[in-house]
């Protein structure tokens, strides 16, 4: 064995029968010139991986089409088997109502107001829920104090909060935001807590031995270790935020997609009920998707793990 091999053991690793996969080494060396590791060329891989995804999309579209066809037939024939379809608007009526609404500025306001409420409530729930959850996961005393509140308050549905929320908060708007916040905050707290609990102790020790303590342990170890779990909590929290918001909007307010839906029922504009429902579904799924996308760059390191 040469001295060079002692100081620079890659050479020796090769002698000793290559301990790391060959492709790792070649890509790393290819990138060495620029001092950056270049990603492998992606084009061929993406074409191959596009095909199954396209097929999945086609199947999803077909399944939706099947549902709409059934819906059309059921409403056309006034199907009455357990469920009564005679008062349900058909897909074509709903489509027409949708077209009418989508150009109506009032409808835009309904959507915008709801989106704003969810965004505000969700931001507050994240700002409160993540730190509280992390602290609960790491500090025994804090957890013992906070856990009874979480356990008792969490199962209370948003609708049950409405009377008290109206009495507690100065404006209708703030009580709706409060109810929405409550819906989102519990899944965020609990997931952040479970994530923090799973912090590997050896990593905490390692960072302590590097001179870290208190806040730096939280920032460099606990938070990133909990991040996958936090991401899951945020996605669930976003979903719950939407149906808590709807509960709040149905009772009070003069704008919002929940109010729109309930108002359509009171005024017997049945196609609008379905338009409202579908918009809620669409917004809920879009915003959850947005949460996933926003978290993805922070979790990129996990893709590297085999």
């Amino acid at each position, binding site marked *: 064995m040469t001295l060079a091999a002692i100081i*620079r*053991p890659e050479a020796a*690793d090769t002698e000793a029968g290559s301990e790391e996969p060959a492709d790792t080494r070649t890509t790393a060396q290819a990138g060495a010139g620029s001092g*950056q590791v270049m990603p492998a060329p992606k084009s061929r891989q993406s074409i191959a991986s596009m095909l199954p995804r396209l097929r999945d999309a086609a199947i999803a579209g077909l399944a939706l089409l099947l549902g709409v066809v059934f819906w059309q037939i059921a409403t056309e024939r006034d199907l009455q088997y357990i469920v009564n379809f005679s008062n349900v608007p058909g897909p074509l009526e709903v489509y027409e109502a949708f077209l009418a609404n989508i150009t109506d500025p009032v409808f835009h306001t309904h959507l915008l107001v709801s989106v704003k409420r969810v965004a505000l409530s969700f931001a507050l729930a994240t700002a409160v829920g993540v730190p509280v959850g992390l602290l609960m996961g790491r500090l025994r005393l804090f957890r013992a104090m906070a856990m009874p509140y979480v356990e008792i308050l969490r199962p209370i549905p948003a609708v049950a909060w409405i009377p008290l929320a109206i009495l507690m908060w100065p404006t209708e708007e703030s009580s709706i935001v409060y109810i929405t916040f409550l819906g989102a905050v519990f899944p965020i707290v609990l997931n952040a807590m479970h994530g923090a609990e799973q912090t590997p102790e050896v990593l905490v020790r390692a960072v302590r031995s*590097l001179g870290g303590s208190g806040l730096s342990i939280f920032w*460099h170890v606990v938070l990133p270790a909990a991040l996958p779990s936090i991401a899951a909590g945020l996605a669930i929290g976003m979903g719950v935020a939407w149906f808590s918001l709807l509960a709040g909007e149905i009772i009070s307010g003069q704008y919002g997609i929940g109010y729109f839906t309930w108002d359509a029922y009171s005024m017997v504009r049945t196609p609008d009920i379905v338009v409202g429902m579908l918009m809620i579904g669409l917004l809920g799924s879009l915003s959850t998707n947005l949460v996933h996308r926003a978290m993805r760059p922070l979790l990129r390191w996990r893709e590297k793990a085999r």
Partner: protein
Amino acid sequence: MNVATTHTLFRQHGTPRRSTEEGRIDIEDVSVVFGSGPAAHTAVERTSLAIPPGEFVCLLGPSGCGKSSLLNAIAGHVRPTTGAVRVDGVAVTGPGSDRGMVFQQYSLLPWKTIRENVALGPRLAGKSRGEADATAGTFLNIVGLSLYANRYPAELSGGMQQRVGIARALANYPSVLLMDEPFGALDAQTRLVMQENLLAIWKEFGTTVVFVTHDVDEAIFLADRVLVMSAAPGRVISDIRVPLPRPRRPEMATEPGFVETKRQCLAVIREQSLRAFENQER
């Protein structure tokens, strides 16, 4: 890279070699007891040791003999139940960057790149990002992993990860390097290379090293002094000086000095195991 360029690297980066005055470890009457009452388990019992600056010491013993507990007491991760640990006369009250630690495995932060892992110590010490990255670059160079600076730990093999672990501990210029079976999870060939690599680095740094292992050959190959520990209760039962010159070479494993030291270690361990057996039968 060869030893000469390693020298240059060191010179460029000030004086990584500690003064011969730094890195003295005094273990004074240290016991480590886990739990209390009837469930209490004495991991380390009333141990006193003095390790002079710059010495390479191996703690050798079977698993569960308390050698890791003793190491963790020096590191400050475990508080001694009695006695105290002093490094350069200062009592250890908790972990600190003056005592670098290398763990058995999986101790790199998986969400940080290799460079970020190595730069973390300097960053925590308040260095600017540029300065910390430069230090990380130096030490990655020393362990031969510059090409992997932008990779994540999961992309590296076990041996490479441990080299990063060593670079990370050294980036704080510690006076003491504590190593808890760092090569235990590696295959035999990789381990041999890692041992030589470690000795080459140690020669440049002159840090005091306390190295925990259960491998007799590894202990003798690396150490100036092998401290053999007994299990239950953990105690240093033999203090054996290794008569081999440096630099150590793998061929030395067949030399009379090596063989004699190994015989001594094995005799102590065997005596200890027999006693443990008798105790179990009684």
